[in-house]
């Protein structure tokens, strides 16, 4: 499988503080499934931000879809971002829009005609079990429902990479497993999936998944070849 993402000696520093991420070198294979684990504050969210181009690294090189993402001109960022689906840790749904309109956003951003928006959005709402909450606005949805809307929004554009930050953090175990099954289905369709989680119960559910472990901003297994159960930090 070709590499869709390549990090080389990547470091990230916020302001003048210590490095949040240090010396990250790894590759993500196209069509593979990755779990990114680590304790709170290990740098999982920061690493994902680099992946979905919300941050530029302080040092090092990142190649995304075969192109240098560090020096990528700003005008080309939208095109790259449309190829990446993101499930934010805090969902980031637009509170004044309905579940339908939130899910339809990526299609509308990409210029899909309104006549072609309705069918995939309805399908996606059914996929995440929210077909009865079409017009509900996020403040009226439970945490789990909001998370499912966020996931539906992330995948509706059939992204090449799906990045999810603690996507099962607000749902019960049954729903967590169901969502993971959705990610797995998407992965089988060819999408590269990166899920950041500290929920060890999930890690064994996807047999083919690779594991990446972060500890204090450093990757413990740069090859991404670990499988569940993971070794200890000193292994």
């Amino acid at each position, binding site marked *: 499988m070709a590499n869709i993402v390549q990090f080389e000696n990547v470091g990230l520093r916020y302001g003048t503080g210590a490095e949040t991420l240090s010396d990250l070198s790894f590759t993500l294979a196209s069509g593979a499934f990755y779990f990114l684990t680590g304790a709170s504050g290990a740098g999982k969210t920061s690493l994902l931000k680099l992946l979905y181009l919300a941050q530029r690294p302080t040092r090092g090189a990142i190649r995304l879809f075969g192109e240098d993402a560090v020096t990528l001109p700003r005008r080309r960022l939208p095109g790259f971002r449309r190829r990446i689906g993101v499930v934010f840790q805090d969902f980031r749904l637009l509170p004044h829009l309905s579940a339908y309109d939130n899910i339809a956003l990526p299609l509308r951003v990409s*210029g899909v005609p*309104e006549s072609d928006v309705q069918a995939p959005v309805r399908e996606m709402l059914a996929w995440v079990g929210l077909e009865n909450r079409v017009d509900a606005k996020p403040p009226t949805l439970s945490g789990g429902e909001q998370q499912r809307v966020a996931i539906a929004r992330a995948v509706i554009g059939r992204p090449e990479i799906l990045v999810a930050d603690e996507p099962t953090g607000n749902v019960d175990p049954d729903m967590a497993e169901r969502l993971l099954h959705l990610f797995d289905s998407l992965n089988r369709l060819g999408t590269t999936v990166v899920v950041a989680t500290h929920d060890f119960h999930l890690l064994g559910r996807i047999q083919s998944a690779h594991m990446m472990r972060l500890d204090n901003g450093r990757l413990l297994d740069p090859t991404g070849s670990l499988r569940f159960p993971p070794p200890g930090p000193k292994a």
Partner: protein
Amino acid sequence: MSVRLIASAADRRLLDESRRTRSMTWIMAIMLFLTVLAAALGLATLRGAGLLDRQLAGRLTVQIVEPDAVKRDAEAARALDAVRAMPEVAKAVPVDRAELSRLLGPWLGADGADPDLPIPAMIDVDLGQGTDAAVAHVSAVARAVAPTVRVDRQEAWMSPVARFMDTLVLFAGGLVLLMAAATGAVVILAARAGLETHRSTIDVLHMLGSTDVQVARLFQRRIAIDTLIGGVLGTICAVGAVLFAGLQLSLLGSDMLNGLALEQRDWIALALLPVLFALLATIAARASVLSALRKTL
């Protein structure tokens, strides 16, 4: 949310309308009210100055300043005949002595009517074309038959008024430009405040792949509508004020002030001001939002 100039219905919902304030509409109403008043003043003065120019251009006063009444009347008659015979002269009319006495009344009182008072004889001359050459020719012809003649261009007497009116037109034009600049500044401030208010929405849109132009379109549409609504309100009020002022001027019965009237094309120009300002606001909002977004990732 494709690359279109006008936002679609779905796009229009992207910015939370409940967080919108109406202050922009009222500010624009006040700005356009003042702008339309300034523009109306400028246009009316321009029309008045034009009328004054047309009325005075080519009009001369020929004075015969001979102190001896008999000689003066003879010179005046010769000068009148000579001037009337010239092809450049459209009309030459002697000014009645009684009329002159009446005009001098405020300064000389009853003495102005004294027949022994050596008041110059006067002839009003209207040239078809008030060129310097025509004026010089009339002066030469009149002086040939009446040595004590003095020829004055009427526009020379009114030149301070004409200069004042020109200054007023420039002043009004400057005011309109100043108001346009102030409108642009208000729009830039409003757009930046709007960006801050909707920062989280814009971040999400960017992460989903929105271009800066797509985001800018959301703001420029909203600001254009606020400006247009406020502008129309302000323009209607200002037009009402202009009509009222025009009515008051017409009641004064002054020929000069009655010249300060707006023509049909002026009313059209005033009606277009809110549209022009909405266009200006759209461009300013777009430029401001694009400039601010360029500083983000």
